[in-house]
């Protein structure tokens, strides 16, 4: 059984290099990282327990991200777990964010800014809405609600 504790992040990413990079960066910051490469694997993990945060690559090998979110919703998994989209696709700033998705991180990202955003979740700031800023390969964080 997968047992999440505080500061656990589920990374859903099929690019092994990016997985390795995220794991190193996040563990250095004190997060516990569980990496999976597909939506199916992620569902299996979420059936067992809930992480603090989900980093979801928009291009999964086995299903569309919308399909993944629907499965999560239908099975009532990760009910209160914020999800961050994560992608190198263009025009992400125009993307409408579905329920449960609190923001989008554009690849490539600036490490310091990325960690700043991720660390904000440690204190339970799930009302953050992260807006993409393509011009500097980073993102802005605005408090909402």
């Amino acid at each position, binding site marked *: 059984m997968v047992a999440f504790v505080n500061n656990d992040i589920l990374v859903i990413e099929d690019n092994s290099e990016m997985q390795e*990079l995220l794991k*190193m960066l996040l563990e250095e910051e004190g997060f516990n990282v569980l990496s999976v490469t597909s939506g199916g694997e992620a569902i299996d993990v979420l059936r067992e327990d809930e992480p603090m945060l989900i980093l979801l690559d928009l291009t999964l090998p086995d299903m569309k991200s919308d399909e993944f979110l629907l499965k999560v919703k239908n099975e009532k998994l990760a009910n209160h777990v914020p999800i961050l989209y994560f992608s190198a696709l263009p025009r992400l700033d125009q993307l409408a964010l579905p329920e449960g998705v609190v923001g989008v991180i554009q690849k490539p990202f600036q490490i310091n800014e990325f960690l700043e955003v991720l660390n904000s979740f440690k204190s339970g700031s799930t009302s953050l809405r992260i807006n993409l800023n393509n011009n500097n390969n980073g993102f802005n964080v605005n408090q909402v609600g």
Partner: protein
Amino acid sequence: MLRLVYVNRMLKPILPRFIEMRRADLIEMTNAINQSDFNYFRDLSHRLLGTPGTFGFHYLVKLAKLIEIAALNRDLDQLKKIKNKYEYFLKSHKVIFIP
């Protein structure tokens, strides 16, 4: 021309593997050119738009965008030129670690 690459010091432990992967790209690019495998280049461009930029290898991100266009146009000559630029960059870059 020497190209300086500014890499966050946190990434130092995994930089050798990153460089190793980029050298592997070169071998795969050569094979893909020989086989006119444009799908490979589309996948490669997508991968290069992610990790290299975070490492600070922004020149590779520029090449990724060129690869994407050349692959879409099925332009083998252009892909060969880009591969040569990629190879030259890997031989000539210098990494500087920053906080």
